[in-house]
């Protein structure tokens, strides 16, 4: 029976220990106060039990000192919880720069995973141990939530935007993946496994299996298929803004605002191009809402992220490596860097049909 009665989840990520420390602190505080209250109630209830039917209690009305005490002490303790909790929360929300990127799409009722090198998985995610992994996540339909108890982290995937979640697995093994936000009939079947592997085994896994081409190369194919390249030219001759070197930069908008060209900006600019018009350009771009699947969007974004700033004098053949100066770009992780090197090898591969 006892082996079937786990009391504590596996601890398999860098931040899990921090979350657990916070948890134990709160348990200690809670246990102390619950027992204190329970003890006082029991002691008073017995010690001062009614001995004669017409007894009355003592004429005590209150005490300002005590009220202050039990206002200030809980306040102090909760502020400790707040600061500590916020600290951990920020850590959970800020992926390290070197994180490898994996793209996840939730849909009723499965998790579809795309690795930068092109491997795809459903309801499974293979990651190496000891390396930060950043998931860039979207959804095709309703809200889901990507939840890995062993890593003590989860994040919702929300229609209309991309969200991120990161972790660094510390122990090889197989861990539960759950959808934590109710998403319809088979919500409880939208589960899977996180397979944490030793780096060597992970490399072996990456190179095994049929691969259709890296994510970025599939994005590039989509970029051509959708004729994005007719307006977004690598030089400023096009009708649309230059995308090379765009990712991570500040963009001046027509209405005077400045935004950072992050993944959500790219996504929105494809789906709702009118929302943010780049200064100096006409609002000409049609919306691609409904024309590209969420996975396709992620591929396009992966592609655009690989477009480094154009090095002066480099010739830009249509099929040429768009990665000209990308090593100088600090904004992309090493994960997509390798994607780039595989890019040309996989170019011949047939891209998946992305139109609905």
């Amino acid at each position: 029976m006892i082996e079937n009665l786990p009391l504590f989840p596996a601890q398999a990520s860098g931040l899990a220990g921090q979350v657990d420390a916070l948890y134990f602190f709160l348990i200690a505080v809670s246990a102390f106060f619950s027992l204190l209250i329970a003890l006082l109630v029991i002691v008073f209830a017995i010690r001062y039990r009614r001995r004669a039917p017409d007894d009355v209690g003592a004429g005590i009305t209150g005490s300002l000192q005590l009220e202050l005490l039990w206002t200030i002490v809980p306040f102090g303790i909760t502020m400790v919880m707040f600061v500590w909790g916020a600290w951990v929360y920020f850590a959970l929300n800020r992926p390290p720069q070197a994180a490898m990127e994996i793209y996840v799409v939730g849909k009723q009722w499965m998790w579809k995973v795309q690795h930068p090198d092109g491997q795809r998985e459903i309801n499974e995610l293979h990651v190496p141990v000891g390396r930060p992994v950043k998931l860039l996540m979207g959804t095709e339909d309703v809200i889901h939530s990507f939840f890995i108890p062993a890593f003590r982290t989860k994040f919702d995937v929300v229609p209309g935007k991309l969200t991120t979640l990161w972790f660094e697995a510390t122990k090889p093994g197989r861990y539960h993946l759950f959808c934590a936000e109710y998403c319809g009939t088979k919500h409880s079947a939208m589960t899977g496994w996180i397979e944490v592997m030793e780096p060597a085994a992970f490399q072996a896994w990456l190179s095994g299996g049929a691969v259709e081409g890296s994510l970025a190369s599939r994005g590039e194919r989509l970029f051509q298929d959708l004729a994005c390249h007719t307006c977004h030219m690598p030089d400023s001759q096009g009708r649309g803004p230059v995308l090379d070197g765009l990712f991570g930069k500040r963009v001046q908008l027509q209405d005077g605002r400045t935004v950072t060209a992050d993944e959500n900006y790219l996504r929105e600019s494809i789906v709702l191009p009118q929302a943010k018009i780049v200064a100096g350009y006409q609002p000409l771009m049609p919306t691609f809402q409904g024309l590209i699947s969420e996975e396709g969007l992620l591929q396009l974004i992966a592609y655009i992220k690989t477009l480094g700033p154009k090095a002066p004098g480099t010739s830009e053949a249509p099929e040429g490596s768009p990665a000209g100066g990308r090593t100088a770009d600090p904004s992309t992780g090493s994960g997509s860097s390798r994607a780039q090197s595989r890019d040309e090898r996989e170019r011949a591969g047939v891209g998946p049909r992305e139109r609905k």
Partner: protein
Amino acid sequence: MLDTARTRNYINAEYGVMSWLLTRDHKRIALLYLGSITTFFALGGLFAVAIRLELLTPAGDLVQSETYNKLFTMHGVIMVFFFLIPSIPATLGNFLIPIMIGAKDLAFPKLNLLSWYIYMIGGTFTMWAVISGGVDTGWTFYTPYSSAVSNTHVVATALGVFITGFSSILTGLNFIVTIHRMRAPGMTWFRMPLFVWSHYATSLIMVLGTPVIAITVLLVFAERVLKLCIFDAACGGDPVLFQHLFWFYSHPAVYIMVLPGMGVISELVAAFSRKNVFGYSFVAFASLAIAVLGFLVWGHHMFVSSQSVYAGMIFSILSFMVGIPSAVKVFNWTATLYKGSISWEAPMLYAFGFIGLFTIGGLTGLFLATLGLDVHVHDTYFIVAHFHYIMVGGTIMAYLGGLHYWWPKITGRLYPEGWAKFAALVVFVGFNLTFFPQFIVGYLGMPRRYHAYPEEFQVLNVMSSAGASILGVGYLIPLVYFFWSMRYGPRSGANPWGAKGLEWDIASPPITENFVETPVVTEGAYAYTHGRMNVV
């Protein structure tokens, strides 16, 4: 039927079904509510039984996923909107507030009756949704699932919730005006029982919060039926906006459910310790503080929803703030026991249970306000356990305690004390066995609303289901002896507990006008001893 003593009272004042259906007497309306909410509680309880049965085994083998999803949705909708929110205010509050402040009735008796009819119409819509196939969105109605995807009876349920909201608004309005305008001569604010204070705070939330959920479910309805674009990301909308609007009401709604319970506990602790509530004014203002601060914390339901992390920080710190007045209340109740004259009658046992369980429920709320920790426990069984500790361990304990305490006043009869003590014990044991394992299984990572779950969670789930069956028995016992006591219970007399309060100065059951003469109040509530002294 109920009491048919020779003396005239509100029960035997008139006879016949119509005398009840058209009554404007707040006490009779309270009984109408008592009957209806008990029915809804039983129904919601049946859904809970089905849920716990399904979760006995890891595989989803008792019912289909569709059915299971409908079960927990209907359990949530009925328990929240049709039982917990009206429970104490519409029954005990309705019955007692005018009496406690020395008034003949609520300020707007017809509106009070209308509130009950609105509640019943809302209930009918929801029941129609249940009977015609159910709804599977979860009681939270998150878009876009509710507005675009689910093909169940979302519209009828949303309309039911919308309509019932107005019942709640009008009840709150009635209470606020009554408390402001109908107090007897000498009944100053700081002579009012804390039960009235907590209902005043509750009414504020009802009036200022409920309209927001009303418009929100109306927008879901409009999106589904009229094809408006409000939360749909395809129109450039934000599904997270729905969550903001939903929780703007639904978090304060938690305080609608628990504040009246706190008021009951203040009365019980004072009456069965025969003592002033310690720090009366702190407890009174804590109610108001909870009502106001409760509106500032809704974003703690959205820490992983893609809400801004800075908004998350603000909501987190404010959530800790709202914990403090709750802590103040618990400490004050405990201090009230000190040097009291404590008797261990059934209502007091429920009060003890409330204090313990509410403490655990409140403290585990801190886990959820803590940003870094909530990321892990959000949407797991940890949260399920937490809010059941507040709502079942808190509100229902207080409701049962209050019902026992005022039962002699309502019916003029005593319930069987031995059975009542036994039932209180059964409820306490059953409750803890049901919900404590859920904290553990939640931290292990079992998500809520799961029809099937991994095998390693089974033992804890079996414990939970076993507890639920004990809890169910614990609720059935009072149902039986309350009915029994209406006919066979010994007559109680005006004040069986030797308690203070205007309600104990009048006959049991009271006459229709409550008071023969308008009382003039000369003392504060809980004046068991006349001398004043402070604890050192």
